[in-house]
């Protein structure tokens, strides 16, 4: 008989998810064991783990979209963003921790694409966790050799006279693309512009929604 878990919370305060009914795997056993041992030895607390999960859950592309929309309406903020994207993000109230963020601007001449060929580095402290596709071998290997073909798969065709600049996040910097403000948005306020900014447009595999 199916058991309704919806009104039952786990110790961390999170509702059970469907996965909790799946057969316990070796690696899940390891996660539980490691977490418990580190708590018992006094190195972390269960509350810290729960809080960190909440902090990470609160991070999402919406944060990046807010930064982009601000840059579109405020030229001084945009200049600060391009100069020091970490500081500009903090200025907007986002707690990004030690993130070394660089914003790269899409223009009529240049389109930017972000990848981490060595692992899957991503500006997660601003945008949240990366999409699954960003972490695949297919994306990581092809983005540096046939990026235009990859973009085509995402539905984006770049003009030949535009330069595509791929950023491979090999070291301590993390990148966010500042996409170009779509045409026909002159009358729109910041709150409306935020809705046009997609996660993929901040990675470079897409462009913002049209108004």
């Amino acid at each position, binding site marked *: 008989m199916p058991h309704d878990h919806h009104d039952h919370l786990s110790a961390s305060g999170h509702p059970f998810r469907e*996965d909790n009914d799946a057969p*316990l795997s070796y690696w899940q056993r*390891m996660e539980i*064991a*490691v977490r418990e041992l580190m708590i018992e030895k006094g190195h972390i607390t269960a509350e810290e783990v729960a809080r*960190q999960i909440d902090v*990470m859950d609160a991070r999402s592309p919406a944060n990046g979209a807010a930064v982009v929309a601000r840059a579109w309406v405020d030229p001084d903020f945009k200049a600060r963003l391009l100069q020091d994207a970490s500081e500009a993000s903090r200025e907007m109230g986002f707690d990004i921790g030690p993130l070394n963020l660089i914003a790269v601007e899409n223009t009529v001449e240049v389109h930017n694409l972000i990848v981490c*060929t060595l692992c899957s580095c991503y500006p997660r402290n601003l945008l949240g966790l990366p999409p699954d596709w960003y972490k695949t071998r297919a994306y990581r290997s092809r983005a540096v050799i046939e990026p235009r073909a990859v973009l085509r798969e995402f539905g984006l065709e770049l003009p030949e006279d535009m330069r595509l600049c791929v950023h491979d996040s090999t070291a301590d910097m993390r990148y966010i693309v500042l996409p170009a403000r779509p045409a026909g948005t002159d009358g729109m306020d910041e709150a409306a512009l935020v809705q046009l900014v997609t996660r993929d447009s901040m990675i470079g595999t897409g462009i913002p929604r049209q108004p």
Partner: protein
Amino acid sequence: MGGQDAGPVPQDGHDFAIWEKRVDALMVLLSGKGFFTVDGLRRALEDMGEEAFETMTYYERWIAAVNLNLIEDGAYSIEELGQRMDAVAARGATYGEAQDG
């Protein structure tokens, strides 16, 4: 990795299970407290080789790397880990049953 042959980029994604979010939290908290560095995690991942990339999911590989780094740091022993993993398995057949000691 860059430039190697690979097929189309798969577009499907998935929401993360609570155990995966806990792995992520352990990575952030324990590297912040100095038990290991992100570099040590990456090195452990790389040493796992291609087969691990093929057969294990993202967070399976990361908990394996976290554990290896903690063993190397002396945070706990292999024996302690083994005993605890057995005790966890004895609690029940699902993650939901096993997660609370």
